[in-house]
């Protein structure tokens, strides 16, 4: 597009999305300072929050329209180029709907040759570059340290706008839901039954309705800022801010010990991951000199961004050397390597690029509750259910996956393999624990961990689109299910234990059937070929297809396929288990069942909206709008895959290869899901098999799972206890050594004082006394002269006079 159109569109998008981003902040400021003006019983704060976030949603929709309009020509060009490329290589019809998009096939894009030192690639590529549909720029420059500029930037591409839409839509629904759910707090004296006071008294406090919405608004601001961020440092700033908001929201019921502990745990485990993030940041800024993702502005010739520096325009990482000395040549946007003033080639050692990738991924491990930092997420269910729905299923935990997707061009194949394995382990661990949990929110929490593992796995095996596709669909159906569980909890008067529920679909039909839509979506049910399958079907399908292709290219990593398939079955099993235990069968606890009622409209309407989205958001699956929106931002090197790259010789699959395996993968996934739900049906609906018997038979496994794989105990032994031991050593050192030293000095001073006193008493005082005594003795002895006898005095006088006369006359000269 022309520079003028670029600038105009960039400015429009900047204002639209910038306002959409900042409105929740304004809401936060208003609510936190003035929220209690309306009194504790008014819902004004909630309506302000809802109004702002709904306006953000409207602004996001218009931003989407603007973006699509501005980039339609480029996207058509790219689609046509892809279609022509596919046909030229005989890739067959039905290749990912490229034909459907290209209304007017132009001549094929130029074939470009690039022989690099990495891997073997196709000799000609379609003309696809996500940076051509990206708008980047600067909001405000914060500081300048030499050549490092720290600023608030924006990076707006299809993925950004999609995330904005998703976050604002889900946030709006959840805000509306929360006005109903949190209505308990609209009172002057809220009685919190889970706070234990001494003496068994009840705990009362004023209601905190407005603060909830203030924190929700702040969270939305932070999340949208993270998504909009154009440089890595800004991502980190908002990363921390979402962590802080999560802390506030989890610890909303501050007086409950469990809640404040959970908030601490969440924040601290996030910080552990952020340590790795900081290392990654430091490596990046040292070698690349900037944090910016990319610079697509056509008017100014600025420094290229990270994505343009690490790979050339065809998406290849240009390396030199082997083994330890392998370095990556830094590009300068375009295909020219970057040379500084002395003509030296700027490079980054390959292993440091791996370190940077792993570092940033470590932050994602913390944020997205991957193994080994996953234990905070189930405890985070201590927060109110709308928080769990918004923060811990759809948005904050998705931030990690989003960052992996965004930072994708910087990841080397070794890092991707690590990501895949961690995702794989996480998926499996989360799913197995969810089988035995009885708290309805915990089931969903472990399910979230498991699905996030799926997303990481997908991103790691080269299925970039699949991972982010699942992110979006998961956000919808998971938040739907959390809201349904919130409705159930609200209706059953804060009963969260599924063993006390049962048969609730008669009393809460809308909740039950929207939850069923969510369960179908997460299990990945659908009939292949239909455009109206549940969204989870398409996304899970894409993931398993990518995994299958990757394993077929790298057979030694076969686990990366088998584990997701087994986990898919387990997912279906425990999801249906949850649904059957809650909504089917006969009520297990009559007290709960009597008082159960359907929730009010404010809570049920968002459920319906989200259920609609959970079903239809992936309309037409991988040929549909959602998939193409994501694909428009796909990094250049993903489409064609790589063969035998990196130090481990890993091959990443291309779209074409994935497409070949797609059908097989689809049937395998469906089979697994079907098997899982069938077993669940037999256990929990028909009661033909008894879960209790199996549980007792395999009690060791069951206990292991109920103890959450004993991760908490492991971390207790690995970290908490050594810290206590070190603490005790320090205490001992402090008491015995340092205090001993000080006591020693004290005793020394005391001894010195004793010596001084002795000296003073015995020597100095004696001296003084001796002087006095000598004088006294002299005086006493002289006293004897005064006898008082008059005659003696007279005699002395006479004698004295005589001797005086004699002396005078002897010694004085006679005159």
């Amino acid at each position, binding site marked *: 597009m022309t520079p003028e159109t670029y600038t105009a569109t960039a400015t429009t998008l900047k204002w639209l999305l910038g306002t959409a981003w900042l409105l929740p902040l304004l809401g936060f400021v208003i609510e936190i300072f003035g929220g209690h003006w309306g009194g504790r019983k008014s819902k004004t704060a909630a309506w302000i929050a809802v109004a702002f976030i709904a306006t953000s949603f409207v602004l996001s929709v218009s931003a989407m329209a603007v973006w699509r309009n501005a980039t339609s020509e480029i996207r058509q060009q790219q689609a046509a180029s892809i279609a022509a490329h596919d046909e030229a290589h005989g890739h067959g019809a039905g290749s990912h709907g490229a034909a459907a998009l290209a209304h007017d096939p132009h001549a094929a894009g130029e074939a470009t040759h690039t022989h690099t030192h990495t891997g073997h690639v196709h000799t000609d590529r379609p003309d696809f570059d996500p940076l051509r549909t990206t708008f980047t720029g600067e909001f405000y420059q914060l500081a300048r340290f030499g050549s490092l500029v720290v600023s608030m930037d924006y990076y707006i591409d299809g993925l950004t706008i999609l995330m904005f839409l998703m976050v604002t839509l889900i946030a709006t629904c959840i805000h509306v839901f929360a006005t109903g759910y949190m209505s308990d707090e609209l009172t002057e004296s809220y009685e919190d039954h889970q706070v234990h006071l001494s003496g068994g008294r009840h705990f009362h406090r004023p209601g905190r309705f407005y603060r909830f919405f203030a924190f929700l608004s702040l969270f939305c601001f932070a999340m949208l800022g993270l998504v909009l961020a154009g440089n890595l440092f800004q991502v980190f700033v908002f990363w921390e801010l979402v962590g802080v908001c999560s802390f506030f929201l989890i610890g909303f019921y501050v007086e409950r010990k469990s809640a404040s502990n959970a908030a601490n745990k969440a924040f601290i485990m996030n910080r552990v991951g952020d340590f790795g993030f900081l290392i990654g940041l430091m490596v990046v800024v040292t070698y690349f000199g900037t944090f910016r993702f990319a610079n697509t502005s056509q008017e100014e010739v600025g420094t290229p961004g990270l994505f343009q520096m690490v790979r050339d325009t065809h998406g290849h990482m240009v390396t030199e050397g082997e083994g330890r000395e392998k370095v990556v040549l830094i590009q300068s946007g375009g295909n020219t390597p970057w040379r500084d003033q002395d003509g030296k080639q700027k490079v980054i050692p390959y292993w440091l690029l791996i370190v940077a990738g792993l570092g940033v991924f470590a932050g994602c491990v913390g944020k997205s509750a991957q193994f080994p930092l996953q234990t905070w997420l189930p405890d985070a269910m201590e927060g109110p259910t709308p928080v769990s729905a918004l923060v811990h299923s759809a948005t904050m935990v998705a931030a990690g996956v989003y960052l992996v997707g965004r930072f994708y061009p910087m990841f080397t194949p070794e890092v991707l393999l690590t990501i895949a394995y961690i995702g794989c382990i996480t998926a499996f661990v989360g799913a197995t624990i969810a089988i035995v949990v009885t708290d309805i929110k915990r089931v969903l929490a472990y399910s979230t961990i498991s699905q996030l593992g799926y997303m990481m796995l997908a991103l790691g095996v080269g299925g970039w689109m699949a991972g982010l596709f699942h992110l979006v669909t998961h956000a919808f159906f998971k938040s739907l299910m959390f809201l349904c569980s919130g409705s159930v909890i609200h209706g059953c008067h804060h009963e969260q234990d599924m063993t006390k529920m049962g048969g609730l679909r008669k009393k809460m039909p809308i909740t039950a059937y929207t939850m069923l839509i969510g369960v179908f979506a997460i299990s990945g049910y659908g009939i292949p070929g239909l455009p109206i399958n549940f969204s989870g079907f398409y996304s899970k399908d894409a993931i398993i297809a990518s995994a299958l292709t990757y394993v077929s290219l790298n057979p030694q990593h076969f686990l990366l396929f088998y584990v997701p398939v087994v986990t898919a079955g387990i997912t279906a099993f425990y999801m249906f288990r949850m649904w059957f235990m809650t909504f089917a069968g006969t009520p297990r606890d009559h007290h709960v069942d009597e008082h159960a009622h359907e929730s009010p409209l404010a809570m049920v309407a968002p459920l319906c909206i989200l259920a609609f989205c959970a079903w239809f958001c992936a309309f037409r699956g991988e040929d549909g709008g959602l998939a193409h929106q994501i694909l428009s931002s796909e990094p250049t090197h993903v489409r064609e895959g790589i063969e035998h790259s990196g130090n481990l010789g890993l091959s990443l699959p291309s779209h074409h290869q994935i497409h070949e395996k797609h059908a097989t993968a689809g049937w395998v996934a469906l089979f697994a899901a079907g098997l899982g739900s069938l077993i669940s049906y037999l256990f929990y609906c028909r009661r033909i098999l008894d879960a209790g018997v199996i549980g007792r038979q395999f009690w060791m496994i069951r206990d292991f799972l109920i103890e959450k794989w004993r991760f908490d105990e492991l971390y207790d032994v690995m970290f908490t206890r050594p810290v206590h031991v070190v603490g005790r050593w320090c205490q001992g050192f402090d008491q015995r050594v340092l205090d001993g030293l000080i006591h020693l000095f004290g005793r020394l001073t005391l001894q010195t004082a004793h010596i001084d006193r002795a000296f003073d008493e015995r020597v100095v005082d004696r001296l003084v006394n001796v002087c006095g005594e000598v004088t006294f003795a002299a005086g006493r002895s002289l006293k004897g002269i005064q006898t008082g006898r*008059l005659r003696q005095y007279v005699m002395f006088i006479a004698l004295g006079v005589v001797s005086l006369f004699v002396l005078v006359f002897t010694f004085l000269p006679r005159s």
Partner: protein
Amino acid sequence: MDPVGLNHYLFVGAILFVCGIVCMATKRNAIGVLMGVELVLNGANVNFVALARFTPLGLDGQVASMFVIVLAAAEAAVALAIALNFYNNHLSIDVDRADDLRG
């Protein structure tokens, strides 16, 4: 023998003086001590008169001895007063008893 000259008178004056001193020093009776004092003063008077006759001192010597006589009388009066007071307190005029100011 020489005619009676100055030295003879001075010698007499010295003897009176010494007798007066010895009397002052040895008498236990206060009146006795006073008598000694008189003797001393008279000895000095003889000195004065002798020197008045035989040296150019002239009448100054006589005048001085008049002073001495008056002083002697005044002092005897005072001394007797002291002795009377002493007798009032101690019922004796033994000077050896007046040793209260002993050190």
